């Protein structure tokens, strides 16, 4: 079984739109949206949910008003500034609470509860391109890295059960916890970038992350015609670092046009964009050793 993850470093480079198109082009696969913070792939795939599970991660402190004698020790120990006196007594700000349990352990009157934190939901759905494993973290919740691992685990089990060769993942932007979790176990990362200073800079950071975790990386330059000089710089970078450039895709409102209709770009009538994308997918298959 192979695992391919589409990442970008910078947001808005077209990662999810391209993942959607690859989901259309790939044969036997399980699709997995690992951008649990702001997932968008479902807007293209219109999944029908078949299974829904709650996601709990870590704990949070809750002060029981009647038991609290107002000594304030918790507030002075909290390193996250999460406990404040609000006039009526001490309260925990759930947004700032890190779930470290220090206040719970030291409270002299045992006035702090420590329930599990309900952070979101995950789903297994069917789509017109095959099964989709996806999730929604509650807005403002933390620890998407753990949820990413849960989704990958589910996608792998599903792939095994259905005899699918491939798990195709849409990754999260950035280089932090969720992206690090996404890379774990991936055979190939495909970074979608754009010829802008931010695009190139973020590609360099995400490439360094892939090197750090020894994940093979290939690159797609989207909107290449926006800035020829930047495109050339990205190509030089990829050449120097031995990252294959899989495709140069034009800046084309076609992608948004497809999105508005709830379609992926390869479902629209054939275009230069979709032809180039089709070739990129063949190269990805070859690089990932699919179909051997």
């Amino acid at each position: 079984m192979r695992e391919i993850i589409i990442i970008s470093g910078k947001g808005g480079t077209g990662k999810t739109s391209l993942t959607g198109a690859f989901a259309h082009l790939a044969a036997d696969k399980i699709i997995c949206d690992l951008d649990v913070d702001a997932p968008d792939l479902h807007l293209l795939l219109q999944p029908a949910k078949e299974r829904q599970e709650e996601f709990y991660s870590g704990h949070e402190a809750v002060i029981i008003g009647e038991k609290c004698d107002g000594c304030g020790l918790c507030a002075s120990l909290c390193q996250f500034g999460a406990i404040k006196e609000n006039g009526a007594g001490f309260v925990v700000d759930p947004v700032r609470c890190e779930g470290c349990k220090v206040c719970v352990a030291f409270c002299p009157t045992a006035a702090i509860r420590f329930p599990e934190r309900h952070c979101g939901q995950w789903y297994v759905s069917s789509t017109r391109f095959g099964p989709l494993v996806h999730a929604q973290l509650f807005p403002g919740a933390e620890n998407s890295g753990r949820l990413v691992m849960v989704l990958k685990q589910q996608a792998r089990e599903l792939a095994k059960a259905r005899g699918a060769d491939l798990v195709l993942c849409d990754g999260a932007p950035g280089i932090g916890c969720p992206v690090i979790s996404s890379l774990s176990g991936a055979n190939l990362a495909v970074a979608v970038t754009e010829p802008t200073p931010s695009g190139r800079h973020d590609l360099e950071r995400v490439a360094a992350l892939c090197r750090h975790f020894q994940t093979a990386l290939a690159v797609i330059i989207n909107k290449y015609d926006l800035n020829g000089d930047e495109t050339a710089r990205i190509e030089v970078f990829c050449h120097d670092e031995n990252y294959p450039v899989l495709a140069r895709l034009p800046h084309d409102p076609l992608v948004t046009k497809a999105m508005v209709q709830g379609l992926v770009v390869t479902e629209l009538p054939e275009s230069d964009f979709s032809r180039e994308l089709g070739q990129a997918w063949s190269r990805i298959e070859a690089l990932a050793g699919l179909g051997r």
Partner: protein
Amino acid sequence: MIVAVASGKGGTGKTTVAASLATIWDGPVLGVDLDVEEPNLNLFLHPVIAGSEMAHMTVPMVEEAKCTYCGACSELCQFKAVSVFNQVILIFPEMCHGCGGCMAICPEKAISPGQRELGEISWGRAGDVGFLSGRLRIGEAMSPPLMRRVKARLDQMLAVTGGDAIIDAPPGVSCPAVNAVMDSDVILLVTEPTPFGVYDFKLAWEAFTPLGKPMGAVINRAGLGNDAIYRFCREKGLPILAEIPYDRAIAEAYSRGRVIAALSPGLEATFVTLRDEIRDLAKPSRSREAAHA
């Protein structure tokens, strides 16, 4: 006043808006990059860096000679950064969230503060605009600790110079994004009128509404996509403070690292109006009602 420029979806123009606002601001202002995973504000403001330092967080360090392997630290630690087996104590500094619990609970005072490198904080100036930025170390998983340190320095800098700050926040709606905006006075949500943009905008609105701060929307690439975003804003009573048209020339200027407020008198006027709208939004609600009366 601290203005946080945020967005649910990445790539909607957060940094563009933050850089443009900083450039046209009419008073002392600091551009602050809190998107520490992928900091890009410098690519548009082109600041001259005056100083930088490595930021660290406190993690446990054990003096084994004092440790009796009682396991109190390991039992308390929710992140498994400290673990005790019979006659061995293990520290996993990369797992530590910096709560200080192990140090506080150790009966032998065997755990002392050590350090983990989080990344770099740098500061400087771009013309009249002050600049402050955090840059997460590659491989570091947690961005909020570094963000907290950048924010602490921001408070110090504002205490000295006075004036306003414009924060470029990370994308998304989970803990790093909330961390970036929670100490601001006004939140600006930048979006684009596409299905992805609208969906993530709704998530951001849900995530930030409980913070109880004034919020306004900036619609970038107006004319692209559909009108769902306008309907949502109307429904929620969320003011649309500015619209930036979908225009290939803007995208090309952005790709050359240019601040778009400087592209045309029309765009400059858009940002000047946006600045005034933000000021108005930040006023206590009573005086805002009075102004509109």
